[in-house]
């Protein structure tokens, strides 16, 4: 039974706060060392979201912003996978939120300045709650790559942003999914904030022709791993507690 503290985060695996190749991080990175804290109940609990909060089209970005009878423009894809913990167990009831640019690489946002056109039928957000095995899936269109102000010619590879709630606030995670075979991945200053190639590879979703829906949508698989927990069988306890 794992109901103890969460495994410590491997800070060498995650991107460091200060990563000068990604210029915005320079003035937004704490400089003092983080203060290590054993998990208390404040971190080992977290909000839960029930399946009943979901609307029918929450996991269908092709249709959830489209006018009736219309759909978003772009290559249709299914993104599916499991939310697991570091012990390899599925995490049921995890809320997974996702957002992305449209097929042309343009976001629906006031502060977006890229010249690619908006798609009137694409909003760019969706969400799902994992099933008993930790599985989730959604339908969307393949997002486009887009340029961004960092270097004079930096481009983001096609990507989907993910926000994940597990069972504890200590597991809270935001990340991005990339697509197999995209040469832009290895040139991206944001991807390159991640120290190891192995950690980057874990953000790249493979194309899965077996789960592709013929004549409709291709499939990509993206598993997400949240922090795991220790067993409490031999954890320190105050005597008599």
């Amino acid at each position, binding site marked *: 039974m794992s109901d103890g503290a969460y495994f410590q985060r491997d800070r060498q695996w995650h991107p460091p706060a200060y990563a000068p190749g990604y210029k915005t991080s320079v003035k937004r990175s704490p400089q003092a060392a983080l203060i290590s804290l054993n998990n208390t109940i404040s971190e080992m609990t*977290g909000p839960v979201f029930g399946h009943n909060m979901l609307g029918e089209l929450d996991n269908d970005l092709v249709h959830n912003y489209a006018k009736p009878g219309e759909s978003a423009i772009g290559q249709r894809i299914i993104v599916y996978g499991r939310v697991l913990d570091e012990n390899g167990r599925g995490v049921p009831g995890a809320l997974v939120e996702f957002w992305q640019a449209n097929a042309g690489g343009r976001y629906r946002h006031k502060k977006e300045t890229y010249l690619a056109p908006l798609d009137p039928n694409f909003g760019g957000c969706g969400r799902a709650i994992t099933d008993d095995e930790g599985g989730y899936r959604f339908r969307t269109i393949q997002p486009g790559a887009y340029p961004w102000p960092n270097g004079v010619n930096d481009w983001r590879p096609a990507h989907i942003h993910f926000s994940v709630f597990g069972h504890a606030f200590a597991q809270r995670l935001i990340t991005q999914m990339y697509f197999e075979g995209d040469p832009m991945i290895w040139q991206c200053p944001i991807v390159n904030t991640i120290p190891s190639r192995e950690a980057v590879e874990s953000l790249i979703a493979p194309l899965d022709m077996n789960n592709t829906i013929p004549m409709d949508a291709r499939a990509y698989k993206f598993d997400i791993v949240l922090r795991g927990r220790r067993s409490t069988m031999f954890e320190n306890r105050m005597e008599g507690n």
Partner: protein
Amino acid sequence: MQGLDQLKETASQTAGPYVHIGCVPNFCDITGVFPEDLGCRMVNEHTKGERITVRGRVFDGTGTPLRDALIEVWQADAEGLYPSPQEKRGMADPNFTGFGRSPGDMATGEYVFETVRPGTVPFIDGRPMAPHITFWVVARGINIGLHTRMYFPDDEEALKADPILMRIEHQVRVATLVAEKTGEAEYTFNIHLQGPKETIFFDI
């Protein structure tokens, strides 16, 4: 040698400048997809406890407020119970979510939560921790979400006896975790990412 059969946690990436689209779409005018933004209401008319407003801004190393951050909070109810299945000490107030999410105002960067004053919750060894609200901050330029805590300035005795605050080496920094009382039932908690006033962030 055998392997440990453990997986690595998925690497974090910045929430980017468009985190609103996925996390608070109604706030950024993407309407009709979700009925309301997640975490926009923590209390209702039946929630027990002392109503408070918590507001503040997040500042970068130049002292400029971030206008593209997303702030999440997680806290116990007025009795000190968390509305979570992991909470084994009792049943929290069903009219309190414990979870809030607020984007900074697009012009000023100010976040706001309407909530209740949290009760006392125990540390690992059973000693009381001073009442606090757990914060999580993400934004463009933040590569991995930042965890911190907000404490209340009127809890002087509890703050002195708090098992976490007591063992912080640089006691001069503890003040960065204590909100300012800026009105009747209103607290201001500014977060500084860098510089002489840098907020304490935790590796939890």
